[in-house]
């Protein structure tokens, strides 16, 4: 099948400064109502593909993806992503995954106002249970491609959500897993923030703690589409 290249990968290859590379491992958790497109966003990010008829997630799925930071080309970040299921039934699983996460991506659907309410309740829960000094929280309004086609489909205005995000001190993006718009930007930004928070604190110790850093020069893709497997 060959190696599916995302724009991120290409960029990563253009920067050939592997020797001074720092490799960081971040844990990221996805939260949000069911069928807002959490899994779709992850798959766009990890495999650069979109599946119209995705099965809804059971429990929590695990994926990983490695990127290079645009602003710090010598920094490689490996995201370990837990994609949780949005259904109420699985709610009790979420704390286990956000408890030791570095970043949380909370997704809502711009065509479903109820999903923003749900997203806000996740923000509340995270702030109460974890506190945002250790956790980078990002809010994402997904499925903007629907609004681009049909402006009347939009139910959550960009400005409203942005204002809320500002008040709460969250990163904010609008995305489309279908077209890919905003997806790589959001992970770049999250990576940047977590790097600033974490990487700056203990730049050397992180490197020392993770001995398997630099050898991972090729972005590891989380599936069998990798070119040499």
């Amino acid at each position, binding site marked *: 099948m060959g190696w599916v290249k995302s724009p991120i990968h290409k960029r990563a290859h253009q920067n050939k400064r592997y020797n001074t590379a720092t490799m960081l491992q971040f844990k990221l958790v996805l939260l949000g109502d069911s069928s807002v497109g959490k899994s779709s966003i992850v798959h766009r990010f990890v495999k650069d593909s979109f599946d119209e008829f995705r099965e809804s997630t059971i429990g929590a799925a695990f994926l990983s993806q490695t990127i290079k930071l645009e602003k710090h080309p010598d920094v490689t970040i490996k995201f*370990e992503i837990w994609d949780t299921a949005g259904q109420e039934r699985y709610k009790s*699983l979420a704390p*286990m995954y956000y408890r030791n996460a570095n970043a949380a991506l909370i997704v809502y659907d711009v065509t479903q106002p109820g999903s923003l309410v749900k997203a806000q309740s996740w923000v509340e829960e995270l702030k109460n249970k974890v506190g945002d000094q250790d956790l980078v929280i990002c809010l994402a309004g997904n499925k903007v491609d629907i609004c681009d086609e049909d402006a009347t489909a939009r139910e959550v205005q960009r400005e409203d959500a942005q204002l809320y995000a500002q008040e709460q001190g969250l990163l904010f993006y609008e995305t489309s897993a279908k077209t890919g718009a905003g997806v790589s930007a959001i992970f770049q930004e999250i990576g940047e923030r977590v790097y600033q928070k974490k990487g700056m604190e203990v730049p050397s110790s992180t490197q020392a703690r993770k001995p398997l850093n630099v050898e991972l020069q090729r972005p590891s893709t989380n599936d069998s589409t990798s070119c040499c497997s």
Partner: protein
Amino acid sequence: MNAVDGPGYLDEPQKSGSELNCPVCAQTLHDLAKLNEHLDRIHGFGEVSNEDADSVNTQLTRSRNVVENSSKAAKANRFELKRDHWIKPVMGKSRCRTCSKSLTQARQAINCRRCGEVYCKNHCNLIIKLNSNAEYNPLTGEWCKCCINCFGNRAGYNEFGAVCNKTSMFKELRGSKVEDKQLRKLQLENRFIRLANGIQQINNQSSKSMLASIRKYTEINKLERSVVPWTPDEAAFACSLCSKPFTLALRKHHCRLCGKVVCNESQTNCSNQLPLMSLIRAASDLPISTEFVDNNAEDVQIRICSACVRILFIKRKFTRELSLPEPSILRIYENMRTTADVILSILPQVLNQAEEFSATPNAPDVALLTKMRRKLLDSFALYDRLTKQMLKIKPKNPAEERIQRAIVFRASMLIQEHMLPLRSLTNAASTQNSSHETTPESERSMNQGYGNNLSIKEVKEYRDQLMVLKEQKFLVENMIASASKQRKFDEAETLSGNLRELNEQVEMIARALGEEGFS
């Protein structure tokens, strides 16, 4: 042998079972494959019609040509499906014709390409070949999405079946079998009656005189042989039931009711010496005199084969057990079920009334509402009492224990599910109408739960959580396996960490649940 005429021929049983008649021209064919071929070839039911079907090769090349031609044609002028028959879905109003799901977004609705009706995505997921006029055309059509109706109603699909009513034939066959069986049973019953009565007579006489008692067994033996002629030993080479050949070790025995020669193996249980008195008791509906009471009768045994036992006694035992009172666990369950039915029928009425009541508090229906609520609470109390009774029964075996546990679990769910809305209702009504009622004792006792000190609600929540955790454990275990296989060891390590956490949580909840957990 060829064409059979007349319209009614299908209803008559065919004499030679293996032959079939063509439903169209009535030609006789030897098997189903031949009939299918005949239908395809002579009557053109096959998708590709071919007059010269003698050679499979020509057939293949022909169909290949058809495909090529049609795809060439499609490329030449792009396939353009007619759309003006599509029914335009009205968002929020239209419903899927199959599942009646309300369609609220344009992305969910889809038109069947053939009939044009609106469906949800799930119910328009079949494909058939349509021409540009949206008509079924298996030859030159293009694959198009369609609904199940259009899929099933397309010409040539499901049309081969011809109705052939064989009920009367079956009934006749079955009837004669049943009759045979009935006769056989009567015959055996008669023999048994004669044997039992005769043996008792001999017994009675032998108890009177010493001499007679010596002759007792020869007399019984004579009686036995007069009731049914025994198959001569020389004629039997193998057990008539299990077909094992007789040897010196495998001795021959005669069944006293059917007279056949059978073996006495304990494994196959082909025949047994059975005490006459228990047999008489097992068939107490038969006219056998039991007036004499003599202990001598107790030790008379007669040999009966397993086939005769089955015909004569096992069915009797079954019907007698049916008429016996049910075990208490089922009786209580039956009561619980009727009570639950009462609850579920009253509850919505009460809730409706309460809503009206809160809208117009002065309505005259207050008395009615109160009465219904009373009845509801009483039913809940009864249900609760029954559940606790059920808990007290000692199960006789593991199966019964499992049934009992399932019933109690279900009961606690029902109370949990339906008591809550009622609770808020009780509060609302009693603030306005406080003099009337106090919370019944039963309601409090119901929240104490069953088994340990968790409330029913907590038990339910914990169980759900446990289930989710176990599912996730299974998923993560699989993820670890596949990560290790792909030599992604750092990922496997992360996942293993998660598995440890999951195990800890499972243990914690299992401990909290104690006996209420899954077993």
